[in-house]
C-alpha cells in the first residue's frame, strides 16, 4: 500500500516552491487535487522547455525576457516539461475562486479533504471568507498550511519572495562563490524553491502524523525564507560565539581541513572534476596516481596542514595534471584507489551516462494525457514494503488543465452532469 493512502490534499499552490510540496506527498500516496483557474495559470505552464509540437516562445527568448511571459505565444498550456515534472502524480481541476459559487464548491472540496495548502498573498483566503476558522468549521480536523515567502506575521508580511530572493536574504547566496573580491556566484537554480517544497511537505506530514495520533488538525505558517536561515546555523554560531563573519571559500573546504579540495579542469569543453582529499591515505593514493611527481615530495606539501596552507600552488599543480585527462576515466581511476572524486556532471551526463542513477531508476516513465509518456524524476527514497513512486495514486504525470473535473466534481462532490454544465457556462469551473 501507499503510506498516505486516504489522505486528500486540496492544493492551491503554484510554481515550484508551492507546488513541489504536494508533489512529494503524491509520491507517498496522497490524493492531491491541484486547483487552477485559466485567468491566472501557473507560470510554469507557459515556460519552456515544451514537449515537441508546441508553438511557444523559444527557450532563448525566455532566458532574455525580464518583463513578463508572453502567454499568447503559447498554444497549449499542457505541454510544459518543467510543469509536468513538478506536478506529476496530482489530479487537476479548474475552479474560479474569485467567483462566490466557486468558493462554495471549494468548501465542498474542503469537507472531503484532510489538508488545504496555498501560497497566495497574505490576506487572499481570508478576504474570500476562507480563513482557518471557516475551514475548521467545515472540517474540524482540517490541516491548513500557508506558504508565505517571509511568513504571515511580522513587518515583512507583504514582501515578495522567489527562490533567488530567499537564497539572497538567508545568506545562502553570499556563501556560494570564490572569495571576495569575486562577487557571490549564488545559485544557478532555485534551491530555496526546492527547500520550500521540502518544508511544505515536511510540515504537512508532521501535521498528518499528529492528527493520526490525536485527532486534531492545525494551522501552520510555513515561510520560504526561514528554512534557508536554518541551514546557516554553523555560520550564525561562529559569529555569535566567536564574533567571526562568514566568508566565501570557493570550492575549498571551509571547516574540515582538506587539500586538494576543488574543481579541476579536464579535457573537453568546460569539463571539470571535483577532488576532495583529506586523509594521508587519500593524499598518498593521489600522489601515486599522479605518477609520484617530484613536486609532491616538496616540504610544503608534507602534512595536511602544509597542503592547506599552500593550496594555491597545490591547486595549480593538480590542475596541470588533470587538464588533459578525460574526466570520467579519471573519476574511475581515482575512486578505484579510494580518492573521493566526481565529475561536475551536466544534466546530459546524469540522464545519459551516470550508471548509478540508472541503477537507481532515478527517472521513471509516466504517461501524460496530452504529450504522451516522458521520463519524470522519481522520488529519491526507496521503500521496501510500501509502494512509493512519483506516479502517485494517479499513476500519471502532471494533469492537463481541468483534466479531473469529472472525477472530483462528480465522484467526490456528487455533482450531476447538468450541474457541472451550468457551472462551466457561468465561468465557475
Amino acid at each position, binding site marked *: 500500500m501507499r503510506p498516505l493512502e486516504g489522505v486528500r490534499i486540496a492544493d492551491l499552490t503554484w510554481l515550484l516552491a508551492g507546488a513541489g510540496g504536494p508533489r512529494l506527498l503524491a509520491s507517498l500516496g496522497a490524493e492531491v487535487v491541484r486547483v487552477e483557474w485559466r485567468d491566472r495559470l501557473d507560470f510554469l505552464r507557459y515556460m519552456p522547455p515544451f514537449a515537441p509540437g508546441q508553438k511557444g516562445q523559444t527557450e532563448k527568448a525566455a532566458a532574455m525576457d525580464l518583463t513578463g511571459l508572453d502567454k499568447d505565444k503559447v498554444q497549449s498550456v499542457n505541454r510544459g516539461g518543467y510543469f509536468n515534472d513538478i506536478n506529476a502524480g496530482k489530479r487537476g481541476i479548474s475552479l474560479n475562486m474569485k467567483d462566490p459559487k466557486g468558493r462554495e464548491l471549494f468548501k465542498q472540496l474542503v469537507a472531503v479533504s484532510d489538508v488545504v495548502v496555498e501560497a497566495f498573498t497574505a490576506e487572499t483566503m481570508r478576504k474570500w471568507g476562507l480563513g482557518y476558522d471557516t475551514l475548521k468549521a467545515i472540517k474540524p480536523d482540517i490541516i491548513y498550511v500557508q506558504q508565505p515567502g517571509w511568513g504571515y506575521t511580522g513587518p515583512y508580511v507583504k514582501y*515578495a519572495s522567489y527562490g533567488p530572493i530567499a537564497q539572497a536574504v538567508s545568506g545562502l547566496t553570499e556563501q556560494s562563490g570564490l572569495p571576495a573580491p569575486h562577487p557571490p556566484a549564488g545559485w544557478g537554480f532555485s*534551491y530555496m524553491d526546492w527547500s520550500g517544497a521540502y518544508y511544505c511537505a515536511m510540515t504537512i*506530514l508532521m501535521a498528518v502524523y*499528529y492528527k*493520526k495520533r490525536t485527532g486534531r488538525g492545525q494551522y501552520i505558517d510555513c515561510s520560504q525564507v526561514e528554512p534557508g536561515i536554518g541551514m546557516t546555523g554553523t555560520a550564525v554560531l561562529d559569529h555569535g560565539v566567536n564574533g567571526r563573519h562568514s566568508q566565501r571559500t570557493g570550492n575549498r573546504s571551509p571547516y574540515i581541513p582538506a587539500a586538494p579540495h576543488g574543481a579541476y579542469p579536464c579535457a573537453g569543453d568546460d569539463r571539470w572534476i571535483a577532488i*576532495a582529499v583529506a586523509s594521508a591515505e587519500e593524499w598518498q593514493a593521489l600522489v601515486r596516481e599522479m605518477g609520484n611527481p617530484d613536486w609532491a615530495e616538496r616540504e610544503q606539501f608534507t602534512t595536511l596542514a602544509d597542503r592547506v596552507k599552500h593550496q594555491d600552488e597545490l591547486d595549480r599543480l593538480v590542475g596541470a595534471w588533470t587538464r588533459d585527462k578525460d574526466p570520467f576515466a579519471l573519476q574511475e581511476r581515482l575512486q578505484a584507489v579510494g580518492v573521493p572524486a566526481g565529475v561536475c556532471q551536466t544534466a546530459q551526463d546524469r540522464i545519459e551516462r551516470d550508471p*548509478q542513477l540508472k541503477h537507481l531508476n532515478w527517472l521513471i516513465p509516466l504517461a501524460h494525457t496530452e504529450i504522451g509518456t516522458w521520463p519524470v524524476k522519481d522520488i529519491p*527514497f526507496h521503500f521496501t514494503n510500501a509502494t512509493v513512486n512519483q506516479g502517485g495514486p494517479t499513476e500519471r504525470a502532471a494533469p492537463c488543465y481541468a483534466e479531473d473535473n469529472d472525477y472530483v466534481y462528480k465522484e467526490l462532490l456528487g455533482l450531476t452532469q447538468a450541474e457541472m454544465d451550468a457551472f462551466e457556462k457561468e465561468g465557475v469551473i
Partner: protein
Amino acid sequence: MDGFLFDVKVLELAEEQGEFCGKLLAGAGADVLKIEPPGGQATRRIGPFCHDEEQPDRSLYFWHYNFGKRGATLDIQTPTGAQLLKKLIVETDVLLDAQPGETLEKLGLDWQALRQLNPRLIYVSLPAFGRSGPWRDYKANDLVHLALGGQMMCCGYNPKDDGSYDTPPIAPQMWHAYHIAGNQAFIATVGALIGRETTGIGDMIEVPIHQAVSVCTEIDVPYWIYNRTPCYRQTGRHAQPAVGPEVQFPTKDDRYAIILPNPFPGGYETLVDFLDSKGQAGDLTQEKYADPANRKGRAFAEHFSDVQAECVAAFGMEEIWHEAQERSIPWSPIRRPEENAEDEQWQARATFTKVQHPELDESFTYTGAPMLAHECAWREGPRAPLIGEHNKDVFCGQLGLSPEELGALKEKGII
C-alpha cells in the same frame, strides 16, 4: 505544547551525512537518541569551535546539527555493545543509519534481522550512492556530491564573450548535499510513520544521497529531456540555455543586492516608477518604452539591467530594498547568514533562539523553528549533548543496568 512527533523515538547512528535529518526529527518533537562511539562522533572534530578551543564538546558544527538530541556512547563493534544496541532497537520507532560502510550488516543486523527484533521498526539508511549499484563503494563528501549531482554545473560565474569559461563551476558551501538528503529522508521517515498507523508494521527505506542531490536541480533536467538543450551557468542567476541579463548588482557599500523581474501584469511599470522615485530610471520613462513591443529582445533586456545596476550602486545594501518590497518589487539584500539575527522580521517570529549552555554558563543564538505552528511547538532545546551525557538515563534508566554494570562498561571502554 506537544511536538508534532511527540511519541516517536529515534535512534541515530550517523556521521555528517545523517545528522541534519536527526536534527529535524528532534525539532519536530521526536525523542532522538544519538549513539556515538566512545570518545564521541567524528563530527565533533569539525570546526569552527567555541572560542576556537578545539575540543569535542565545543564544535559549533556539532552544536548546530545535534541540537535537541540526547546522546549516549556505545562501542557497537563489541559483543556487549551490539547486545545493548539490539535492546535499544527493540524499543525505538526509527533507526536512522548514516554510517559509511555496511556497519550494521557486519554486526549481523541486516534488514531481516532488524525487523525480527522489532517488526514496527522504520529503518532509514542514507548511503552515499546506494546499497547496491556500480558506484556503491565510491567515496564522496559534500563537494563530490554537489559535483556529481549537477549543482556545480548550474552554479558559478558568467562565461566569457566567446562562451568559454575561465572560472570553475561552484559548490555552494554549507553541507547542502546533506541538507538535501536529510530533508528527503525526513519526508520518507514521517511518511513511513503515517503508513505504519495503518499497516502496523515498519519498513526499510534507502535514501541514496547521490540520488537525492541529483533530483534537486531545476530546469536543466527537463531542458535535456524535452529539448536536448544544455543550460549554462551564469553569475547569480539560473543556469539557462542562453546567457541572460544580470539580476545581481553591487551596492554603494561594496555588497550586493538582487532584483528579480516581477512577472505579474504591471510588474515592469511598478519597477520603473520606483526607480524614477529614486531619480534612477534613466531613459526608461520615455514614451517609447510604454509599449511592451519595444521592451523585447537582448538589447533592451541588457539596457534595463544596466539601469537597475546604476540604481543599486547609488545606495547601500540595506538602504532601499524595503521601499521596493513595499511596492511588490522582488528586491533583496545579499546578506551574510549572521546578518539575519537582528532583523526585526525574524525577531517578531522568533526565528532565532537563545540556547543555554549550562556547563559554560553562557547562552548563544541558534537558528530555530523553520515554520510557525500554534497547536504544536518546534523544539527549543536542549543544546547538543556532551559526550555520553545521557549514558546513565539510557543504560540504567531505560535498559535497567545497575550503576556497577555501567561502571564496568565504562572501564572496558564499551561506553
